[in-house]
């Protein structure tokens, strides 16, 4: 069963790699959104430094959101989603596999790029490692919770906007703890509690979200 889940992950990742464009577009969007802020706010180094963590995190949320509606869409269109529902693998496990694949193809490239954007936004040196750590811990929650939104809107024609309306409020805890952890590290405070809360939220969403998403897919396909 785990083997099947692994093969779903491999399939999604290789599909995305061969298709190429989706991941590149998400990364490009991430960079462009962050680089809009100096134009809007002004190029003063100290102001950019203050907002850097927050801007990078918000841009990461938006980029993640951008790719969510494709999570089940292609499978729904070519009928593989019906096959997943009918297959002996529990649908919940399929959702977990799809979420992990989404994380590998969307969030992981963002984490690789984030330090470069950190340099552009004048992020203090003490902030780089915490930024990478928090993104590593926090972004899986985005994919798991996003899976709920993607499955709720998969059968709808104009699901994209609804998806953002539903999912963005649920991302607030990740944003809060992700930013607080980095800021605490920059300020020289102990950030352990923020890391633990962020990790807890991720684990909680990993445990709960697949059930909701699977229920939503079943209701949607009826």
């Amino acid at each position: 069963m785990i083997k099947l889940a692994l093969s779903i992950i491999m399939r999604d990742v290789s599909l995305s790699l061969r298709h190429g464009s989706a991941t590149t577009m998400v990364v490009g969007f991430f960079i462009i959104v962050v680089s809009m802020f100096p134009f809007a706010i002004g190029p003063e180094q100290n102001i950019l430094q203050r907002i850097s963590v927050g801007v990078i995190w918000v841009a990461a949320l938006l980029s993640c959101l951008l790719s969510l509606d494709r999570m089940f869409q292609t499978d729904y269109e070519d009928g593989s989603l019906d096959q997943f529902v009918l297959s002996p693998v529990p649908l919940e496990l399929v959702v977990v596999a799809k979420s992990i694949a989404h994380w590998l193809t969307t969030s992981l490239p963002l984490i690789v790029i984030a330090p470069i954007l950190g340099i552009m936004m004048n992020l203090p040196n003490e902030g780089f490692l915490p930024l990478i750590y928090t993104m590593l811990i926090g972004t899986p929650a985005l994919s798991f919770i996003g899976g709920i939104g993607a499955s709720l809107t998969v059968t709808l024609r104009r699901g994209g906007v609804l998806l953002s309306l539903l999912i963005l409020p649920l991302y607030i805890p990740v944003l809060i703890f992700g930013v607080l952890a980095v800021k605490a590290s920059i300020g020289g405070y102990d950030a352990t509690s923020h890391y633990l809360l962020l990790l807890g939220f991720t684990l909680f969403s990993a445990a709960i979200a697949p059930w909701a998403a699977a229920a939503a897919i079943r209701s949607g396909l009826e």
Partner: protein
Amino acid sequence: MHKFANPARFMRLSNIVLPWITGLTILLFALGLYYSLILAPEDYQMGNTYRIIFVHVPAAYMAQFGYGVIAVSSAIGFIWKHPLADQAARATAPIGAAFTALALLTGSLWGKPMWGTYWIWDARLTSMLILFFLYLGYIAVWQAIEDQVKAAKIASIVSLVGLVNVIIIKFSVDWWNTLHQPATLMRMDGPTIGGNMLIALLLMIAAFNMFFVAVLFWRIQSLILQRRIRSLRLQLGGGLG
């Protein structure tokens, strides 16, 4: 529980109960307004401005209560496939959203004389705003899906996920806010409330509650009638027109 799933029975029962609830609502509002505007004394610090809490506090309470009603009826509708519970959840959403908006509005009107600004990113205000977003998302789901049975299922999942999250969000917003501004401007432990003020507040909460129930019944009735009209039109073969 399935005894009440029959829409016709609900229509009969609610037609009997509704006049009483409406009368009680009017009575409670009359009493509550009399107490809160006339009998309750002027506050020695805040003057007459404080009287907005007699609207603000009940509205904020009903906003949260409304989301609870949606979540409970959604759970009942999802587990027992109870059509009336789905309709109840659907009917509650705009009422709850309106109370949330009212709470935000009165809160910011109160904030101007008290804090000198219409909006601060206070933990309570922020969580209320997020609750409002969750209401909007829930209402949008009902509007986006044509098939009512499917919409009910999807919407109930949305509301249950939202309920779990609203608790986490509330906690994290408190955490975020206490770290950002240690001295909160709004301190409730200052003037303790008592006497006629307390009676007025309780009366207003009861009045808002009754009003909520009355509007909810009206809305469920109108949803049932809408469905009946739809199915009658379909039977006549005239399409949905």
